[in-house]
């Protein structure tokens, strides 16, 4: 059997792609100055760090419970505000209820802009505007959630069954009534699911927001790292891991029950 009769008949194409990838890899390593030997050369430094890191200072836990809770509160409040704004805007971002193509285009353009701002940049901007503190964190999370969830919801609205909309139109309902009576019941469980998903993402994200001064546990993490208190850093990271795992688990269980 010849090679061209097998599944490998276009082996030269695959080889060509592999060579291209290899060239890209080597070239980008050269440009950025990445060097593998450096990783192993610093093994000593690494072992010092790891030695201290692996001795978590559990006595420090009481000091971080407060910030941890405020991180959670920031996420919950921010998510709630974000979703509360996302739902009505999502309705405007589809023609399903409004039938207004111009409005939809404008709203979507606005949402696209909101979504392109990275989380941390948003936090940094908010700190610059609002100053340091939890409120800044809440607003950052709210804006981020708004951008993410509004898109998910308007995609859900676009896929609803149009029948009930027509039925409501034919009994003489107005557009707001159609939104509440024909569309909302069809997307409610999806909205709840997206809210929980957003909460998961936000709890994870908000632990880092403190880095730029947006409050919560990130502030302590940042200062502990700066002061080289690795035994505290490891406790904080463990704490974040546990809390994120719990939130993910609970929210996932809730979402499974919803669907």
């Amino acid at each position: 059997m010849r090679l061209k009769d097998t599944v490998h008949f276009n082996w030269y194409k695959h080889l060509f792609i592999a060579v291209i990838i290899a060239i890209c890899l080597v070239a980008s390593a050269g440009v950025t100055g990445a060097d593998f030997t450096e990783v192993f050369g610093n093994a000593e430094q690494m072992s010092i760090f790891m030695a201290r890191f692996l001795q978590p200072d559990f006595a420090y836990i009481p000091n971080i419970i407060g910030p941890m809770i405020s991180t959670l509160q920031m996420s919950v409040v921010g998510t709630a505000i974000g979703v509360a704004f996302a739902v009505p805007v999502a309705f405007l971002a589809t023609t399903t209820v409004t039938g207004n193509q111009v409005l939809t285009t404008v709203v979507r353009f606005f949402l696209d802009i909101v979504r392109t701002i990275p989380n941390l940049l948003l936090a940094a901007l908010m700190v610059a505007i609002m100053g340091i503190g939890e409120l800044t964190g809440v607003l950052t999370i709210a804006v981020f959630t708004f951008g993410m969830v509004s898109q998910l919801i308007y995609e859900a609205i676009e896929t609803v069954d149009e029948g009930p909309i027509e039925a409501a139109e034919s009994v003489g309902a107005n557009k707001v009534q159609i939104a509440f009576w024909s569309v909302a019941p069809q997307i409610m469980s999806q909205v709840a699911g997206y809210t929980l998903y957003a909460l998961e993402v936000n709890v994870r994200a908000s632990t880092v927001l403190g880095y730029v001064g947006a409050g919560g546990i990130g502030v302590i993490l940042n200062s502990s790292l700066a002061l080289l208190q690795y035994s505290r850093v490891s406790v904080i990271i463990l704490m974040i891991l546990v809390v994120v795992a719990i939130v993910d688990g609970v929210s996932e269980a809730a979402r499974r029950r919803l669907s």
Partner: protein
Amino acid sequence: MITFEHVSKIYSNGVRGLQDVNLTIGNGEFVSIIGLSGAGKSTFLRSINRLNDITEGEVCVNGRSVTKAGKKELRAIRRRIGMISQNFNLVKRSTVQKNVLSGRLGYYSTWKSILGIFSKEDYELANDALERVGLLDKLHSRSDELSGGQQQRVSIARTLVQQADIILADEPVASLDPITTQKIMQDLKQINQTMGKTVIVNIHSVQLAKQFSSRIIGFKSGCVVFDGTPEKLGGKELTEIYGRNILEEKEGAQDEA
């Protein structure tokens, strides 16, 4: 009373939905609309409550122009015109009660309907309507738990609480089995006879049209090619509507079965 005066409808893609339709449907009639798919049956029905706009002519319902009505007036006219469809058009995740009560939406302010503040009379109206179609025990069931025939009866109950004078039915039995089909058609007939409501049904089955209606209108390429009593609809007229005499073939097929 429904009047069509020189009504034409040309869709934006150039398809002619209706061509110079002139007719009057009196109160209390049971009218069946027959014709091939694409002959304009749905367009005709949906022109009555302006779910689609017409391009020429005028449609009037009870003396009020549907064609010229503003948004608010159109909603007021629509309140008195019920509509049921092949797909039942229920909110599947909502309860039967909610779906039936939604027939009253046109009578409520936006705020009241958002908060779900319905009058005691309207709750009773919903119960009466469900009792009439034999589904009162399903009041709090989710609509998607019901069978197709039951869902269609819920949508009939919705038109009843609407207190509509006219019921438009767009292929109401197309997705139902023969037994359920008979029951639904009898429900419509009973509503027509005991409550005096005008019923207009789009239907593919000529037998059902002959069995239930007091008047049959045949459409072909958007034109009315037959309008008369079921007795007058014979082989010649059917050939005009469908291109061949389908009644004989259908009867033959039933004999075999």
